């Protein structure tokens, strides 16, 4: 039950993009097409889950026993960078077209603050192993859902007759704001 609550909480109620405002760079950058957004969502899901798990392991079995909690941030950044590098290699091998389309945004997952945010929040909230993994996975699913929804909306906006002052990024920002308002509506659903 508690695990299900974690998932609902991270996907809807405390959505990392629209409620906590983390990871906005790929949210705005890779949301032009649904296919690209789906690919980005998959890559980020992989990175987030893996880095949440491995940063939990490193924090629990390396940093805490040695009393090196003050090295947490740099150690997590190291973990995330390695996981992203690994993901980049896998994507390049398995789907060269996706690799081409994602371009610079693939290595930029490293600087996606949602990834570091999940790792640090896991420590802050004293999550266990399974909880950490679910927290990372839920955050990633929430990120992917929002990214795909947003890119679907943007595809329709591209074909719409937008007033001149709002064309391009302006209407995208407004749309993101409205989506965020919508997700705020979930906040009464449960508290964790």
């Amino acid at each position: 039950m508690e695990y299900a609550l974690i998932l609902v909480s991270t996907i809807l109620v405390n959505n990392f993009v629209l409620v906590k405002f983390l990871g906005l760079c790929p949210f705005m950058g890779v949301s032009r097409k649904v296919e690209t957004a789906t690919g980005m969502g998959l890559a980020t899901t992989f990175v987030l889950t893996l880095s949440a798990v491995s940063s939990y392991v490193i924090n629990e079995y390396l940093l805490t026993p040695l009393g090196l909690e003050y090295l947490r941030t740099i150690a997590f950044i190291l973990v995330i960078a390695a996981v992203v590098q690994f993901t980049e290699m896998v994507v390049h091998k398995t789907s060269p077209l996706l690799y081409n389309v994602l371009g610079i945004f693939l290595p930029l997952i490293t600087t996606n603050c949602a990834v570091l945010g999940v790792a640090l929040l896991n420590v802050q909230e004293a999550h266990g192993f399974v909880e950490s993994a679910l927290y990372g996975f839920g955050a990633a699913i929430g990120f992917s859902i929002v990214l795909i929804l947003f890119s679907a909306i943007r595809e329709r906006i591209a074909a719409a007759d937008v007033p001149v002052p709002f064309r391009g990024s302006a209407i995208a920002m407004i749309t993101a704001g409205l989506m965020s308002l919508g997700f705020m509506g979930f906040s009464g659903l449960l508290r964790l």
Partner: protein
Amino acid sequence: MLNAILAITGLALAFGLILGYSAQRFRVEGDPIADQVNNLLPQTQCGQCSYAGCRPYAEAIAAGEADINRCPPGGEATVLALADLLGRDPKPLEVEEKEKAVAVIDEQTCIGCTLCIQACPVDAIVGAAKQMHTVVEPECTGCELCVEPCPVDCIAMVPLERGLQDWRWSQPAPSPIEQPRRARRKATEERRESA
């Protein structure tokens, strides 16, 4: 202090080893996108795209240097297939799509110099030195590469007659309903201004 240095160094070393192994394991040979693009091109090696052949053009497309609408032998079908593969917007052919034509050698004038045989990228011309040459019509892609080298100008491009395979309805006149909203609105505004 020493603990901290050792821990971070150890972590970095471990990740370095994992990444080094996976770099070997997931190594990408060649350029897979250029291969996929190359498979879609018609392989006439005619050079009408201004590249030396289909492979260099495919590499240029994969690198994002060339547009996808420069292959006249492939025609609209190739542009659409490439647009689908690469997720780009299909464009009309850069070179106006010519009526499909084949080269025909005027056999009375041919002196048997073999220059056109060397020029043909698809080996559609048969003949030998000092013998009359002729074009194998089904093989000819209409690339016009043989027209230039002929010293006696005996090669002409003859448009193919439309058969059952390539006959199409002629385009209908544009209907007012399918015009984009903006164009219609502009037309209304203009009408209002003039009134």
